[in-house]
């Protein structure tokens, strides 16, 4: 707030107030206050400090809280941009970082080796779910999930470009600038808040004769001003998907003290790039030695970064562990920043006088060779380091050096995560001692240090070349410019694996993977337990897993395993890198798909009317359908009871607009339907309807619906609500691939028509008041007729059909007239006591008549005969979809499950849908089951329970007693015909 322009940012860490400066990360601000201790380790709860500078940070995982709903765990302190008022808390400790009761795990660590959790807590099984798992989760968890709905807005977008450059360090910038000059569409992204990468902490560098700060400014402006370039900062390329689709997570507001609540917090970019240039840099490796995880021990390049970029000294007196020449450059920069260099301990086998080491010697820094580390001291911060001397392969104690910080460099590992995610192969660069990208099946190339290229000048030129190649490859030919650069720098080559030590077993507490608390002893144990494959070792020890993905640990683990087995690193092999590169929020993947935008909410014409009268809705696919219309204090049972009786005795109205509708037109329309549905359609007269059944080619029922013949060459097909899209797709599929000879075309008309079903003995009375242009008398318009006319002035297509078993009509009007139609029928029906009814009553009414619902009474394994609708099959037809499937012998076995009715012997006892059916009572599980209940209701008109069920050989069991086992009792029921009401069909023909 007011502090921001005074140049001070106030923040708290674990409740304690601190000050930082604009441009700080949480890590740089804490380090400036001497705070290294920022977390407790995952398994042993050991105190841990900041190790890195950016995404590679394995230890300092932090929760940032804005308010009770905005709580983000597992952020890296090195990536959290400071803002005024930031509230940060450490994780994985109780009650505090300095005193953690679970640190007892550290003393018990000999009892907690790799695989401990898997082995110890397996049995008894029930205890795993109730006891062990929740307790372990709480102890071992990484942060806590927020408990309230996320109030933030997450956006998503698609983008297309010629060249995507991932990473804007020296190589990425050179690639982007070169590609941009070609005229290609370029997107360049970087996970940091500004472009520049390692150049941001390399004040000695000059590019083409200009100081680095100036060169950087000019380059960034050139990119930002180019119309063909999109620059994305704070944007992590977290995943490489097939066909050059790259997922980018752009963080828009996390760095702001007062984010605009209307703006998205993050934005997911799905970028389809013709060519990708990966310039993802290299990550420095820690050294592996006993006690290497103590707070105050960090990477040399990170310490250099804090000094040069953030003007933060990580300590007063440093010991530099040089496993690479680059460590000397860090020592020089720390020395220049005012940190006392107590000693540079070179741990390499054969240190040579590379450039940085030469400068360190010239600067008079204390250097000793052939050293190793035997241990470190200091409870919550390193206070001294015990060094050993290596000679003739033996280690002997050398001396203890006091210090408040140890910086280490084991060399650099090219960051090949995205290349690996692209299914790219790697090759081992023996000079570098690391894997570098080889081939990728995708159109991607790596540039600069992630490709193993050393030295600023070489990296810039390599970047420019890869940028030029990428642009040229997508039709924008350009030559790479030659670039000049100079800086002080060391080589990336380093020391992989564990520092020399005596003894058969590796030393204790020499951590390979800080984040997953994996030591060299765990790796040794994995070998003793017989794990050979590096993928198995990864899973057994958890090294390289989870949010870290082995950024700092992979190569050290491989080098250790290789040495242990006397193999080469390439022989050991490398595990696969998984996405995301760094943790990504769930919100960014959900995007706008939340609340009432999670899915389309499809509303029917009667929707608003139903809302006004207090209708209760249910989801049917994406549709909101009224389930029942309660009056007064009615519950569902009472409302459905009333609605059902109204339809049976008076008249009801029902919104049937959701049924799928397909218009089938052409001279071959009848022939097409003959082939498609099981029924015969040739003999259906114009103006008539028929109930149709559709099978798949395996002979199982797929959909059903009434089909009307509007003209010789025009049919109106209805489908189930849920089946509309798949039936349409299946028709189109057959027309395009199987029956290209047929002159027939289909068009979806589901939403062209609004439909109100008017059902009940008085249905005709209601419609007679409204309908013109068509005679709807029983003789002129019998059951299963269709005709056109007008209703209340609206053009109408009228079907005389019934899914209730009563005299029934379905009135179709042009879609936008649906609510007017609903109102008109409601008005006209008042004098007949018309009752709106919902899907629940509709289900009861149809079950009383034994009408099936495809998908409820059928399950994808039922033939028309199983479902009791074999009568629909056109016996004279040569073929239809499913005919040959139905000819298989198993399809006509007498003991197939067949649809029957069930009447419980206690008429008031309503069965559970899905309950199993047995032939005997009093059985103990497991027992043979002969079928299951598919539909079950209380029938108001029959004043008793009814159910539909599928039972093996059910139609031969009419009158027999079966049992439905429920907890504590078996319910007896009698097998009956599935038509419970008006079996003669008197009412439907009324």
């Amino acid at each position, binding site marked *: 707030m007011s502090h921001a322009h005074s140049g001070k940012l106030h923040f708290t860490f674990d409740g304690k107030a601190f000050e930082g400066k604009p441009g700080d990360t949480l890590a740089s601000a804490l380090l400036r206050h001497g705070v290294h201790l920022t977390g407790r380790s995952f398994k042993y709860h050991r105190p841990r400090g900041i190790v890195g500078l950016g995404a590679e940070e394995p230890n300092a995982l932090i929760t940032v809280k804005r308010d009770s709903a905005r709580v983000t765990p597992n952020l890296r302190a090195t990536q959290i941009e400071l803002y005024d008022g930031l509230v940060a808390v450490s994780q994985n400790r109780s009650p505090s970082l300095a005193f953690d009761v679970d640190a007892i795990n550290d003393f018990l660590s000999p009892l907690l080796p790799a695989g401990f959790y898997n082995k110890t807590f397996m049995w008894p099984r029930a205890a795993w779910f109730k006891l062990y798992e929740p307790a372990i989760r709480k102890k071992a968890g990484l942060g806590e999930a927020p408990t309230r*709905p996320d*109030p933030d807005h997450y*956006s998503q977008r698609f983008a*297309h470009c010629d060249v995507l450059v991932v990473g804007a360090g020296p190589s990425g910038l050179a690639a982007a600038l070169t590609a941009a000059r070609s005229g290609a569409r370029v997107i360049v992204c970087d996970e940091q808040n500004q472009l520049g990468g390692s150049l941001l902490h390399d004040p000695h560098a000059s590019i083409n004769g200009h100081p680095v700060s100036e060169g950087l400014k000019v380059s960034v402006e050139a990119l930002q001003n180019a119309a063909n370039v999109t620059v994305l900062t704070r944007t992590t390329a977290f995943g490489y998907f097939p066909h050059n689709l790259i997922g980018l997570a752009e963080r828009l507001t996390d760095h702001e003290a007062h984010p605009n609540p209307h703006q*998205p917090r993050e934005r997911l970019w799905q970028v389809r790039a013709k060519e990708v240039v990966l310039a993802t840099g290299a990550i420095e490796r820690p050294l592996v030695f006993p006690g290497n995880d103590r707070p105050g021990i960090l990477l040399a390049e990170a310490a250099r970064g804090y000094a040069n970029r953030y003007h933060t000294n990580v300590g007063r007196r440093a010991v530099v562990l040089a496993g690479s020449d680059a460590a000397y450059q860090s020592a020089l920069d720390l020395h220049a920043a005012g940190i006392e260099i107590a000693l540079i301990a070179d741990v390499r086998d054969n240190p040579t006088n590379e450039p940085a080491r030469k400068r360190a010697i010239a600067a008079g820094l204390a250097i000793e060779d052939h050293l190793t580390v035997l241990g470190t001291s200091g409870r919550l911060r390193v206070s001294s380091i015990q060094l050993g001397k290596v000679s003739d392969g033996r280690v002997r104690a050398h001396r203890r050096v006091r210090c408040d910080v140890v910086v280490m460099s084991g060399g650099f590992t090219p960051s090949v995560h995205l290349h690996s995610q692209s299914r790219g192969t790697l090759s081992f660069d023996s000079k570098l001692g690391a894997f570098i990208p080889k081939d990728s099946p995708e159109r991607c190339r790596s540039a600069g240090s992630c490709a193993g290229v050393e030295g600023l000048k070489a990296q810039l030129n390599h970047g420019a070349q890869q940028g030029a190649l990428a642009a040229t490859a997508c039709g924008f030919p350009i030559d790479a410019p030659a670039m000049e650069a100079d800086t002080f720098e060391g080589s990336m080559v380093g020391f992989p694996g564990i520092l020399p030590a005596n003894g058969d077993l590796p030393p204790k507490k020499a951590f390979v993977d800080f984040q997953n608390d994996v030591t060299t002893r765990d790796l040794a144990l994995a070998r003793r337990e017989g794990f050979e494959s590096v993928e198995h070792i990864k899973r057994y020890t958890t090294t390289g897993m989870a949010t870290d993905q082995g950024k700092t640990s992979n190569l050290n683990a491989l080098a250790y395993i290789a040495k242990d087995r006397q193999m080469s690193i390439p022989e050991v092999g490398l595990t696969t890198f998984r996405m995301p590169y760094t943790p990504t929020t769930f919100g960014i993947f959900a995007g706008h798909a939340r*609340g009432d935008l999670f899915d389309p909410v499809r509303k029917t014409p009667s929707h608003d009317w139903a809302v006004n009268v207090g209708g209760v809705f249910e989801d049917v696919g994406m549709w909101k359908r009224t389930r029942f219309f309660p009056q007064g204090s009615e519950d569902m049972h009472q409302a459905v009871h009333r609605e059902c009786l109204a339809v049976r005795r008076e008249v009801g109205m029902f919104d049937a607009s959701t049924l799928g509708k397909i218009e089938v037109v052409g001279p071959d329309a009848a022939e097409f339907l003959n082939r498609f549905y099981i029924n015969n359609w040739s003999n259906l007269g114009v103006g008539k309807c028929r109930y149709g059944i559709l099978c798949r080619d395996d002979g199982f029922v797929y959909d059903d619906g009434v089909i009307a013949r509007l003209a010789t060459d025009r049919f109106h097909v209805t489908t189930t609500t849920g089946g509309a899209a798949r039936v349409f797709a299946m028709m189109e599929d057959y027309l395009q691939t199987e029956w290209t000879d047929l002159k027939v075309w289909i068009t979806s*008309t589901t939403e*062209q028509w609004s439909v109100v079903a008017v059902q009940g003995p008085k249905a005709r009375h209601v419609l007679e008041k409204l309908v013109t242009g068509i005679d709807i008398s029983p003789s002129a318009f019998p059951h299963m007729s269709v005709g056109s006319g007008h209703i209340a002035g609206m053009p109408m297509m009228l079907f005389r059909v019934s899914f209730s078993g009563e005299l029934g009509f379905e009135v179709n009007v*042009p879609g*936008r007239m649906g609510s007017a139609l609903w109102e008109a029928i409601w008005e006209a029906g008042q004098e007949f006591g018309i009752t709106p009814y919902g899907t629940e009553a509709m289900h009861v009414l149809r079950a009383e008549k034994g009408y099936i619902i495809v998908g409820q009474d059928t399950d994808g394994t039922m033939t028309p005969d199983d479902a009791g609708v074999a009568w629909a099959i056109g016996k004279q037809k040569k073929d239809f979809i499913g005919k040959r499937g139905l000819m298989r012998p198993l399809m006509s076995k007498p003991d197939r499950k067949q649809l029957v009715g069930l009447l419980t012997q206690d008429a008031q006892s309503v069965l559970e849908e899905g309950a199993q059916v047995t032939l005997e009572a009093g059985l103990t599980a497991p027992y043979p089951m002969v079928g299951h209940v598919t539909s079950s209701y209380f029938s108001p008109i029959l004043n008793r329970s009814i159910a539909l069920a599928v039972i093996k050989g059910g139609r031969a069991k009419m009158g027999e007693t079966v049992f439905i086992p429920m907890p504590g009792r078996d319910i007896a029921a009698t097998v009956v015909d599935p038509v419970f009401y008006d079996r003669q069909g008197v009412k439907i023909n009324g």
Partner: protein
Amino acid sequence: MAKHAHAPRVTQPELDLSFIQKSHQGTRYIFRGDEAAKLEASGVLGVSLPQQALTSHSHQGLSALWLGPDEVLLISESAEDLKARLAPMSAVHSLVDVSHRQWALTISHPKAAWLLEAGCPLDLSLKAFPVGMCTRTQYEKTEIVLWRRREDCFQVEVWRSFSEYLEGLWAQVAVEL
């Protein structure tokens, strides 16, 4: 009762969304038939039914949009009865009235393409998706017909019950314009 309480939609500012116009003006038909039928219909209607994929033709308020090799969306701004006009055709074909099936949502904005790229995976740059191009595609979970009328104007044809969803999504994305 409603079974699940919905998570709230995020807060939204008052936005001027008048650059999105919703209309069902005119009549709409799906014409299906082979090349010869399309040729004959073109002669009758005075607008060429496209033979080339992803193209459209308009003439005097009547537009024909290619949706598939044998499928054309006809839009008559003056609400002509095309069924009557095409009745005399000799080539077999299918003509189905879909005037009530869909809405036209027209987005006129300098960043119209940017708005649509939030949910449509296609490349909507002018080079890849020029004026006059049309396609049946996806916007998040909805099928749409997308038609570029001008550089900064797209017409989106969407089935009636999906339009609220689409408008709701655009209201969210519009805060980023």
